[in-house]
């Protein structure tokens, strides 16, 4: 098959895009592919295309007049742009967002750093200690014993300073 962009070279890369809920595949040669579609990832807002796809699959969609109570972002804005207006939108559009997140990331559950919140009072050294403890755990995990030893020294020095 010839490349659907230049029509000259043999097509070797199928590129699939989702537009308006429809998956379209174009076959490109290895010259055109890096310059064309797959050069810059996918559509400008990958979430927007996916939302349309999910709606065509019968996943729950926000009704037109639904809007975020905090920032006023409407369901239509969200569907068109795939972007949210404020942190509270995650609650407002939770029903649509969960399946979207699953599609985008293969998961809708955070497994990364836990955030304990800003600390208006307390010892700033504790922030540093928590950080060093986490790095130490990591250093041991990847068997970087040199860093681990260094981190242990830093932790005991800080603990001593804290105790005084």
């Amino acid at each position, binding site marked *: 098959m010839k490349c659907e962009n230049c029509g000259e070279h043999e097509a070797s890369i199928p590129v699939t895009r989702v537009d308006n809920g429809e998956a379209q595949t174009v076959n490109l040669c290895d010259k055109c592919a890096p310059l064309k579609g797959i050069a810059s990832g996918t559509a400008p807002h990958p979430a927007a295309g996916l939302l349309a796809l999910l709606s065509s699959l019968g996943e729950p969609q926000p009704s037109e007049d639904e809007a975020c109570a905090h920032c006023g972002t409407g369901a239509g804005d969200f569907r068109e742009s*795939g972007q949210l207006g404020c942190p509270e939108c995650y609650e407002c559009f939770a029903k649509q967002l969960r399946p979207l997140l699953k599609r985008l990331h293969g998961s809708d559950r955070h497994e990364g750093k836990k955030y304990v919140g800003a600390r208006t009072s307390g010892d700033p050294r504790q922030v540093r200690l928590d950080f060093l403890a986490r790095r130490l755990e990591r250093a041991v995990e990847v068997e970087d014993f040199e860093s681990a030893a260094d981190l242990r020294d830093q932790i005991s020095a800080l603990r001593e300073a804290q105790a005084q």
Partner: protein
Amino acid sequence: MSNEVAWCPPITDQGLSWIDEPGPASDIVVSSRVRLARNIESYRFAARASDNDREVILRRVREAAEDLSTLGEGDLWEIQRLDHSDRALLVERHLVSTELIGLRRSSPQRGAGLLLARDRTTGLMVNEEDHLRLQSLRGGLQLEAAWCDVDQLDEEIGSRIPYAYHPDLGFLTRCPTNAGTGLRASVFIHLPALVVTRQIAKVLQGVKQLGMTYRGLYGEGSKIVGNFFQLSNETTLGKSEEALIDQIERFVKNIIGYEQQARAALLLEAPGVLEDKVWRAYGILRHARRLQYEEFMNLLSGVRLGASLKLLESPGVETLSRVMIHAQTAHLSRAAGRRLNETDASSFRARYVRATLKDARRPG
């Protein structure tokens, strides 16, 4: 603890320190970057926030910056106060996005800012797509070190400014594609041998299949020139930061292996052709009177391959990384003392490259 944080200082050589510490695998990997997207609770995301809110956010970052022990001495710019050429300099150093400097609108948004440590390429963009985009740039393949830089900065900033966070969904971002860890780890990698031997398509297909993505020199939507690719993770939720970093690092190491094999095969099977390509590229760079940026990057790619394979002893890869930055139009304009149009820039570029690359040596 209080730091010296300069407010809108002149732009000199800030943000280029990564070039002087080339790091592992720098013959193939130019640089590694890790960025974290963070937002402040109770505010609308930056694109939807009022001018006043964005200015308040910039002010809070400015106050917090004064006692960030990981930052040390630093510089903080309000993008609106910079003139066009300074903004372009920051883009060319990959310290800010074109979105932050408001390239697609008439001017940057109020409250858009950049904070940068003075001794490292670590800092954060303020009021881009998200309120905060923490980032660290390192030379060569150093994702783990870059992650450590931003992790530490994140701990300190997050302890002073309350982030928008959800126990199930993690850090909340303007675009759901960044939610969770908010982490994007990327490497800027030079793969000329995989391109020449036509194996690149297969590799890039693999990138997509493994949930990663690739882009050109200036990030999303930009063109691939000079066989330089930016590879990064596409998903940000459902894995820990360390797992994401490990995954991309392992993957990049595989690609480095393929590129090395392709280079070895070229050296073995067509040493004459390879050497000719390298020295021709050098010859044009050394003598041309006009160089468009794209042509320059393609030739630089040839010379960089020669430098990595020790076909020429100098210039080294660090010099070439530096040339790559300084041969861009805003940097040339700065050196020329006036804003250059494309034609003038190509003459200035040729002159700068001729002067910088004049001492090539063969090994031995």
